[in-house]
């Protein structure tokens, strides 16, 4: 309001200084007019988004599968400075809000994105900024962890997009009907992903009597970490019993990532890629969306063998904070020119067991911008 008043006063002073005989009220309405127009545009975009979401939901209920169809909007997105936009958005949402304004802003956010404010851990006034509110914790007991020792639990709140078993050559995950991406590209070329090449198949048949768990512990990661090499992802097949699950988090969801099981994280990889949106439309129109976007991958071992979590950023939620490695910085100014450059990799305690995480423990958080 003070800014608006200052602009109004300045325009009036300027008009009188210039001896302008024109009506100063024309200038007075310029700023509010622009603000109203911006709000209307944002409202229209939000309504359009809700309409699109509803159509997608209806289509999904009818069993209609969307096909991959690159369009001009996806091409246009590539030209936008999405990283700068994301960082600017992060700066704006980090601005400390007056205490009286906080509940109004957070309630508006919750209404727009269907967040449940009843489970928020602290009073709304305690969150100084929208960014802080976004990574809010929940009240004790809001997310009970399934006690069954023979189950794997969801690491996040969200919508299940895809799941299944990895089969066939190339270890591919379907992005949408008509387009798939390789798991090795998602996790990194030096991934510990248990794949079987032709040579491995012969070797493995002679080791059938061995202890699988011991083998998991010793061969995969020692081999991969001691002498990382790029595997032939086309001819390699995933080992049996390898599964995947893709979960999308909408802006209103609780954005902390928890551990899906008791496991030891051995490696962290940070890919500094693009920051395309990852909504339904983007998955249908941008090739290799998850492989191109900035992401943090954690890999390790659990009682079943291999496990990896890839946390993939987007334009609005660009940075990822790792609780097990707080010093890791993501969504930084671009230093690498090519996206094909190898990721930043860190091995947790090469000779030890890595970082031990309990089922349900907080692992990471997605930040606004």
């Amino acid at each position, binding site marked *: 309001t003070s800014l608006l008043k200052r602009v109004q006063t300045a325009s009036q002073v300027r008009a009188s200084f210039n001896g302008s005989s024109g009506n100063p009220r024309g200038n007075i309405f310029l700023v509010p007019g622009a603000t109203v127009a911006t709000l209307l545009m944002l409202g229209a975009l939000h309504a359009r988004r809700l309409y699109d979401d509803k159509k997608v939901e209806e289509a999904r209920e009818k069993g209609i599968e969307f096909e991959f169809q690159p369009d001009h909007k996806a091409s246009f997105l590539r030209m936008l400075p999405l990283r700068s936009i994301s960082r600017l958005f992060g700066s704006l949402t980090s601005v400390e809000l007056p205490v009286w304004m906080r509940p109004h802003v957070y309630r508006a956010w919750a209404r727009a994105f269907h967040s449940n404010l009843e489970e928020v851990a602290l009073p709304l006034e305690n969150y100084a900024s929208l960014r802080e509110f976004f990574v809010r914790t929940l009240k004790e007991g809001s997310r009970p962890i399934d006690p069954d020792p023979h189950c794997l639990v969801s690491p996040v709140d969200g919508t*299940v997009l895809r799941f299944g*078993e990895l089969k066939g050559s190339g270890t591919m995950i379907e992005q949408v009907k008509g387009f798939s991406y390789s798991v090795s590209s998602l996790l990194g070329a030096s991934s510990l992903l248990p794949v079987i090449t032709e040579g491995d198949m012969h070797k493995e048949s002679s080791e059938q009597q061995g202890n699988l768990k011991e083998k998991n512990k010793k061969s995969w990661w020692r081999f991969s970490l001691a002498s990382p090499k790029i595997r032939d992802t086309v001819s390699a097949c995933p080992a049996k019993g390898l599964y995947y*699950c893709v979960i999308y988090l909408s802006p209103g969801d609780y954005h902390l990532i928890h551990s899906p099981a008791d496991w030891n994280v051995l490696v962290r990889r940070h890919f500094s890629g693009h920051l395309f949106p990852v909504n339904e439309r983007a998955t249908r129109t941008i090739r290799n969306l998850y492989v191109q976007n900035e992401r943090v991958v954690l890999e390790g071992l659990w009682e079943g063998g291999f496990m990896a979590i890839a946390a993939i950023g987007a334009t609005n939620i660009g940075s990822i904070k790792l609780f097990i490695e707080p010093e890791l910085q993501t969504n930084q100014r671009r230093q690498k020119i090519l996206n094909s450059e190898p990721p930043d990799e860190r091995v947790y305690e090469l000779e030890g067991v890595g970082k031990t995480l309990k089922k349900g423990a907080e692992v990471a958080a997605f930040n606004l911008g």
Partner: protein
Amino acid sequence: STVVLVFQAPTLKMLQNRDSSSEFRFSIRRGDRVRVGEALGRWHD
């Protein structure tokens, strides 16, 4: 934002019968809303 979980399910049965698949079964469907701590799938001991 999106999270992709890749994991190998416990497959002790595979040691005896290499053609058998894992005992792991997903307990979710596409489009389901899931929350932290809810089971994605189970396996038998």
